[in-house]
């Protein structure tokens, strides 16, 4: 307990330090992303820490959450719906019909005929779907493509996207889990890596749905806008009372604080469930399965079923965090999803914090995100220092300074390797 308090206290001090020496704006910006990272780390911890599942597709589930934020909150584009809406719906219906036909046909046909029948139905379904889909996509993308060129969303409050993002990610996870969970562990890793790449490809290239690389910007906010805030009498009064030197600075801080409060609330809810689950008989069973699969199976535990359950839960958590991240950014930029940042970095958080311990995952999320952000100034400082003896215009010195940003990869790799080697239990070890 004292260790936990000490570590979280030290983290808070670091953030306060940043607030005083860089700015409170920077510090709060870091805190917000730390909170989101912590939720992702909690999701990974459910899978790896509780159950020993190696999921390297976090990025895909995060991106699904982000996509949900767009589909829930952006206003619908009526012209696009008029141009291609019916055909898109027909394409979706054909897809559903194909799936149903395949399932029914597989039930009815004898074993030997199943594969050929499935393949024939798949080909027929493919042509049926593209009959509606291809022209529809073209028409939708043609509608004012500089501004919209996609169907838009449902125009609902963006906070709704957080739970819904979790649901969408959970659906995808169920599908992938059904395929890969019964097999050897490495296969799950490779299969999740695959599905996350495909999700990103879909988000990047299906412009009728996501605008693709043209990005959806200007997502609605769950918190007030700065420009509105500075005109409110109560806010001006607050600034007077606080004796704040700059009204717009204060508005920026206020907005960040609002986000932080919302994120903290979500983190608290997820954490509460995660802790309850871990301490329940269900959590003990999970750890028993993790520690000795064969023994647990021999005791009559449904290993694959439980794995599927925890896999879906973990991915849903990442989906929630993904929707929150897109909300905070105010935009969906599909090209920004790279696995080094959205999958492997989250893994470093869990390993450093202490796999199997929820508090560890949260602490890892804070520490690693903090280092990820502060590595750049640190790297700059380091490179400036070692290039000090060199001439300012020398090729090597300029090259090293230009590469300073990439010291963060080195740092993350070094942290992961050192922790795995010398402190595999992490900063806050699992309790038994």
């Amino acid at each position, binding site marked *: 307990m004292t260790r936990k308090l000490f570590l979280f206290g030290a983290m808070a001090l670091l953030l306060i330090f940043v607030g005083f020496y860089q700015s409170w704006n920077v510090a709060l910006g870091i805190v917000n992303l730390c909170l989101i990272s912590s939720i992702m780390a909690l999701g990974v911890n459910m899978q790896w820490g509780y159950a020993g599942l*190696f999921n390297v597709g976090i990025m895909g589930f995060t991106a699904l959450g982000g996509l949900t934020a767009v589909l829930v909150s952006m206003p619908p584009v009526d012209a696009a719906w008029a141009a291609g809406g019916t055909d898109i719906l027909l394409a979706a219906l054909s897809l559903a019909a194909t799936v149903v036909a395949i399932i029914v046909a597989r039930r009815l046909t004898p074993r030997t005929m199943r594969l050929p029948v499935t393949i024939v139905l798949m080909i027929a379904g493919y042509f049926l779907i593209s009959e509606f889909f291809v022209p529809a996509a073209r028409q939708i993308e043609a509608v004012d493509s500089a501004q919209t060129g996609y169907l838009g969303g449902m125009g609902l409050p963006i906070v709704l996207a957080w739970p819904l993002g979790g649901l969408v990610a959970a659906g995808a996870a169920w599908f992938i889990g059904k395929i890969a969970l019964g097999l050897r562990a490495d296969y799950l*890793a490779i*299969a999740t*890596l695959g599905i996350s790449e495909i999700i990103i490809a879909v988000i990047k290239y299906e412009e009728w749905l996501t605008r693709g690389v043209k990005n959806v910007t200007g997502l609605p906010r769950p918190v007030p806008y700065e420009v509105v805030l500075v005109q409110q009498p109560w806010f001006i009064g607050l600034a007077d009372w606080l004796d704040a030197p700059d009204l717009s600075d204060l508005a920026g801080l206020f907005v960040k604080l609002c986000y932080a409060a919302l994120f903290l609330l979500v983190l608290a809810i997820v954490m509460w469930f995660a802790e309850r689950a871990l301490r329940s008989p269900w959590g003990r069973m999970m750890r028993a399965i993790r520690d000795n699969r064969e023994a647990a199976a021999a005791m009559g535990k449904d290993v694959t079923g439980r794995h599927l359950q925890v896999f879906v839960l973990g991915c849903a958590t990442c989906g929630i965090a993904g929707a929150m991240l897109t909300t905070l950014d105010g935009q969906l930029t599909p090209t920004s999803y790279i696995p080094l940042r959205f999958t492997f970095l989250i893994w470093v958080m869990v390993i450093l914090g202490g796999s199997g311990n929820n508090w560890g995952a949260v602490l890892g999320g804070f520490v690693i995100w903090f280092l990820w952000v502060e590595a750049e100034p640190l790297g700059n400082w380091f490179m400036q220092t070692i290039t000090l003896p060199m001439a300012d215009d020398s090729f090597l010195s300029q090259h090293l300074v230009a*590469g300073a940003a*990439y*010291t963060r990869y080195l*740092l993350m*790799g070094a942290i992961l*390797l050192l922790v795995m080697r010398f402190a595999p239990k992490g900063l806050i070890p699992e309790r038994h």
Partner: protein
Amino acid sequence: MDVLNALALITNFVLVPAIAYGAQLSLGALGVTLIFGILRFANFSHGEMMSWGAMSTILATWWMQAQGIGIAPFPTALLALPIGIASTILMALAANRFVFRFYHRQHSNPIVFAIVSVGVMFVLAGLIRIIIGPDDQTFTDGARFIFTAGDFRQVTGLREGIALKQTQVLTVVVAVAVMAALFWFLQKTRAGKAMRAYSDDEDLALLSGVDPDRVVMIAWIITATLAAIAGTLYGLDKTYKPFIFLQILLPIFAATILGGIGQPVGAILGGFVVAFSEVMVTYAFKKFLGYLGPEDWAPEGLVQLLSTEYKFAVSFIILVAVLLIRPTGIIRGKVI
């Protein structure tokens, strides 16, 4: 009906690129499968290992070009490749000595190995981006084409031409030579036999006096060599992009699993199957079918199964199909 034109078309746009890409994938998959066979884990750092090899070769190429050393009409990179290989071997041996050996001696869980390989991947990615930067680099020199589509049209009088890039031929020649050398090594030499024995049955091999540290070291040396060659050939054929090597990991893993984990022959087969599937599924067959049909006939639409953006999706679909139907791969792998 114009069968010859159709054949020329498909050769130019499907056959030749797929063979070159397949050779590059196979070399990558061979490295992954060797580590799978000996150390029994999925090596996530393999992509960056390829990138490291390509980067070292590029740096050596630049140095040679500055010195005026070259072997025109061949690309200078070929001359620089041994330096790239040496540098990759050093890197792999360092990773083995300082990272992987510890876990091997502890008999750690394969997933722990995989996580550690992610750490190695991060370090390599950081080093590569600090050394050469995150931008694309072109380092091809020498003659570009062996013959161009125009040459081919002139000689044969066909409407469709076939172009053959020098890098494509080089890729295939080098890959075949490397694979032949590898199989000779595995079948005929003492060290190769020890490696196969160790991969088949670790305990039995240990009882027969096989030195595990040596086997692992040789496996890393071979893997690094394969990675450097594969990375350089891939970079020569396309351009060198540091960020692409994490993406290419997926088709390589797909090829490994498809062929049967731990099976070198399977890795080669898998590499070509994945490459051909990727190219064929994303190729628009409109013109090809047009030649085969009656005069002035062409199918509506492009007759393309998936748009080219989904190239990587193909390897994943193959992967899922293999996992569902035959998880041991084409040639029965050792581990499920």
